[in-house]
């Protein structure tokens, strides 16, 4: 039955017989290069198959890498984004540490330059109310802090301790409207009282109307109030309003940038009030 089927497919059978003979012939005949024709033809055909399969594999691999594997790339991209974010945070932290180190180094240099006992403290919080210009430092009575101890920075006077706790203290900034310090103009030695305004500037009061003061003169502490050591920078005269009366209204730009304070020194030894 099967033979009949084959016999009915004469075309296929004829083709098979022809191909069989060609293979038989090719196995015996050499090409001009001396290679058996069957081997040469087989190799040639198979080489094309290999080329095709290789091309197919390459294209598949290419497609896989360029399209299908993009899901993996997307996951990796997300992971890399997180890594970049983490590194950026780390970099910022390192920068902050470096900046803090620089600030602390300045503070250390400043501390070694002053003649009295001080302790360093870090600013841990700002004021709770905009009406009161205060800040919180990380040192308290445990480190020997007491009320009315002067708080200074390399740039100048910061304020005074007004409420020490065990491990933290509240500091009244010199710009607070209730803060004040004895001051003198460094160049002319004209004396007065520097008071906070609640804003970013200070006001120097009680300066004689005939005193030699100029815009740009540096104002330092006089130490007369017994809190701030004498000679520390408060700021520079920004403007002078000479009135008809006895005193002039002098506006001072503080030398300390209160908005960027990170570390301060607390003067532990109370200054000796000048006689």
């Amino acid at each position, binding site marked *: 039955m099967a033979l009949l089927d*084959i*016999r009915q497919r*004469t075309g296929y*059978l*004829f083709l098979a*017989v*022809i191909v*069989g*003979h*060609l293979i*038989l*012939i090719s196995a*015996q*005949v050499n090409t*001009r290069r001396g290679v058996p*024709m069957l081997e040469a033809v087989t190799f040639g055909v198979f080489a094309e198959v290999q080329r095709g399969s290789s091309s197919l594999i390459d294209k598949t691999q290419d497609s896989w890498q360029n399209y299908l594997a993009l899901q993996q790339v997307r996951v990796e991209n997300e992971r890399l984004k997180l890594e970049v974010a983490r590194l950026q945070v780390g970099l910022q932290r390192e920068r902050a540490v470096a900046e803090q180190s620089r600030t602390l180094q300045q503070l250390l240099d400043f501390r070694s330059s002053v003649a009295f006992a001080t302790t360093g403290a870090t600013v841990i919080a700002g004021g709770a109310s905009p009406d009161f210009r205060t800040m919180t430092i990380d040192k308290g009575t445990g480190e020997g802090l007491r009320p009315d101890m002067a708080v200074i920075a390399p740039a100048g006077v910061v304020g005074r301790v007004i409420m020490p706790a065990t491990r933290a203290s509240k500091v009244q900034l010199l710009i607070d409207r209730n803060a004040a310090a004895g001051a003198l103009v460094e160049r002319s030695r004209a004396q007065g009282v520097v008071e906070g305004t609640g804003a970013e500037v200070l006001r120097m009061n009680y300066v004689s109307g005939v005193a030699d003061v100029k815009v740009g003169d540096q104002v330092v502490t006089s130490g007369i109030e017994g809190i701030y050591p004498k000679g520390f920078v408060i700021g520079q005269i920004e403007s002078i309003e000479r009135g008809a009366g006895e005193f002039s209204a002098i506006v001072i730009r503080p030398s300390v940038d209160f908005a960027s304070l990170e570390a301060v020194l607390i003067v532990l030894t109370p200054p000796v009030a000048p006689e």
Partner: protein
Amino acid sequence: MKAAGVFLAIALALALQTTLARFVVGGTAALDLVLVVVVYVALTTGPVSGMLAGSVAGIIQDALSSGVIGIGGLAKSIVGFAAGVIGQQFIVTAALPRFVMFLAASVAHAAVFMGLYVLLGLRTFPSPWAAILSQAAGNAVVGMIAFTIIEGLPGIVERRRMRRRL
């Protein structure tokens, strides 16, 4: 049964071919009895039988000769298949069509056979037409005789039996 008869015919043709070859004038093969058998089988049984007969006979013939095995088989397969197809498509029971069929089959066989050898660069056939035509004519004549004998043999036997009874 038919296949056995075909194999027997091929074997007989080969035996005759190899035996008679040395008696041929000039040593040239003026006849191809195997080809005659193949064409006869193709015309009487069809293209598949013709092709298979040609394939087997050609390969055996190639194996017995010093040529490349398969070239003769391929040539005879093509000729057997073509003869079978033509035999099915046209009426080739008369003497002349059969003669033409044998003649054409021989020419086609020679063309394929020689063409393959030339194509493969294995042999050259300078001025082959005389040999081809003479072989084709010889094959056609033998084929005609074979047909006549085989078709007439049952009648002859029957007539002899009738004479004996009378």
